[in-house]
């Protein structure tokens, strides 16, 4: 995926993995099933309202807490094309890269962008455009190694390409 465009769902600081996907739903591991309950403990309407391509924007430490990969998986399978935050908790950060959920760190964008704005993202340049206000922001580009993982569609594909040539 080189670009994304969608409507913004906006959240604050320290959105934890327990509200992204509560443990009571972790007795299954299918992304489609998990997506039905995505964000339920912080925004019970999210799963019904989110459309393919939509974007989550949040402030600092998004995805803190548990290592459950079910959290980025639920977000990805809910159709979210990208998560933009001031900072990400480290396990969520690597899980998102490993499963191929695009994420971007950009404090200015995270602070400015509001719920309901239409935002587009160019992953090659890191440029985030708020189509609603016309304002643009540039996110820190990922190290080349992580870009390769994401380009391959996640760590499993990246590794199996390396293992199997």
């Amino acid at each position, binding site marked *: 995926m080189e670009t994304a465009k969608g409507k913004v769902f906006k959240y604050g600081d*320290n959105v*934890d993995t*327990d*509200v992204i996907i*509560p*443990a*009571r739903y*972790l*007795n*299954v*591991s299918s992304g489609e099933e998990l997506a039905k309950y995505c964000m339920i*403990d*912080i925004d019970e309407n999210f799963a019904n309202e989110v459309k393919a391509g939509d974007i989550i924007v949040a402030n*600092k*430490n998004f995805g*803190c*807490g*548990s*290592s*459950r*990969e*079910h959290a*980025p*998986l639920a977000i990805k399978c809910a159709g979210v094309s990208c998560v933009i935050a001031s*900072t990400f*908790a*480290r*396990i969520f950060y*690597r*899980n998102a890269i*490993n*499963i191929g959920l695009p994420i971007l760190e950009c404090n200015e964008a995270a602070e400015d962008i509001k719920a309901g704005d239409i935002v587009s993202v160019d992953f090659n340049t890191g440029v985030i455009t708020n189509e609603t206000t016309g304002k643009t922001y540039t996110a820190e580009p990922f*190290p080349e*190694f992580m870009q390769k993982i994401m380009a391959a569609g*996640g*760590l*499993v*594909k990246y*590794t*199996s390409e390396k*293992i*199997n040539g």
Partner: protein
Amino acid sequence: MAMTMTQKILAAHAGLDSVKAGQLIQAKLDIVMGNDITTAVALKEFKKTGAKEVFDKDKVVIVLDHFTPNKDIKAAEQCKACRTFAWDMGVKNFFDVGQMGIEHALLPEQGIVVPGQVIIGADSHTCTYGALGAFSTGIGSTDMAIGMATGEAWFKVPSAIKFVLTGKPAKWISGKDIILHIIGMIGVDGALYRSMEFVGDGIQYLSMDDRFAMANMAIEAGAKNGIFPVDEKTLQYAKEHSTKEPVIYEADADAEYDEVYTIDLSTLRPTVSFPHLPENTKTIDEAGHVEIDQVVIGSCTNGRLEDMKIAADILRGKQVNKKVRTIVIPATQQIYLDCIKLGYAEDIVKAGAVLSTPTCGPCLGGHMGILAAGERCVSTTNRNFVGRMGHVDSEVYLASPAVAAASAIAGYIADPEKIAGGNN
């Protein structure tokens, strides 16, 4: 180039003379671990890699501890898939109900983890083993899958914050109070992406169980890992529990740290994290009158023998408040047996508390102690997020086993000194 303790361990496992903060490395793994929730996802990803077997049958560890004994049919199906995978792969360190304990109490106890190792675990509290002077960090299921297939993982070398611990803590101050105090000070992202390296002469007063509780909650400050230097207590612990040879790494004297904090342990008071973040700390003196409905004493943070002893010492000969459901969970089968042998089991049950088989259950709102709307729980666990132990309108107050046991008797958040006496 001078390195922190963490950087030295990572350099050695990456086959490099030195590493620096921010560098991306590929490191060899000594242990790859997962539980019933995360392994259920990892085994699917493992199959997608095309790997036919795990990289080392001795170095993969699978512990069915979260939704066990199986809480419902779906959890039973997940555990079954994990069990079949473990058997098919010939995983030697596979722990099912009967041998199982809460993973982060079990692995050190069984001698699977020792000083100097690099360990990844598909559970965020894998940072616990830093207490032993190992580099140990939580990762997700995909990293676990790749770790099982290749024996390696990618890491971004972290910078570090140094915590200099001085002085001797007072009677009821445990590792839990110290780490809650630190998280209250630096916040839930205060150590984001970084190592927390604990040093100083105060460490000599901390038992291994104190250190496990502290390293365990490094993740609650956002840290990649928490780590303690290896001293006589560490080596004694490793010798008693493992036949593996410990490897000792020390930070260079001139290693660079992003920040340095000095904490006089003698000044700390029992500390409680109020809802809904571990950083919302208050001392017991500031807590006010908070009535409670439930107490949980257990988990990978505080389910070890010393925690059980503190609970039993406070509960012995007393009764828990009739309005407070008190659930005590020894973290492993060995700790459970020790509780019976040492009389703690009787103290706990006679006081009107329940003593459960090992499980992570209530900590993450799985089973064995779910909260209804409006209910409050004092818990020795590690997270008090919205809905963590049940209904989104329930509340979790994180505290030490001493505060939890005292609160169970009082019916409100209580100072152990007032319930059980103080002074050394």
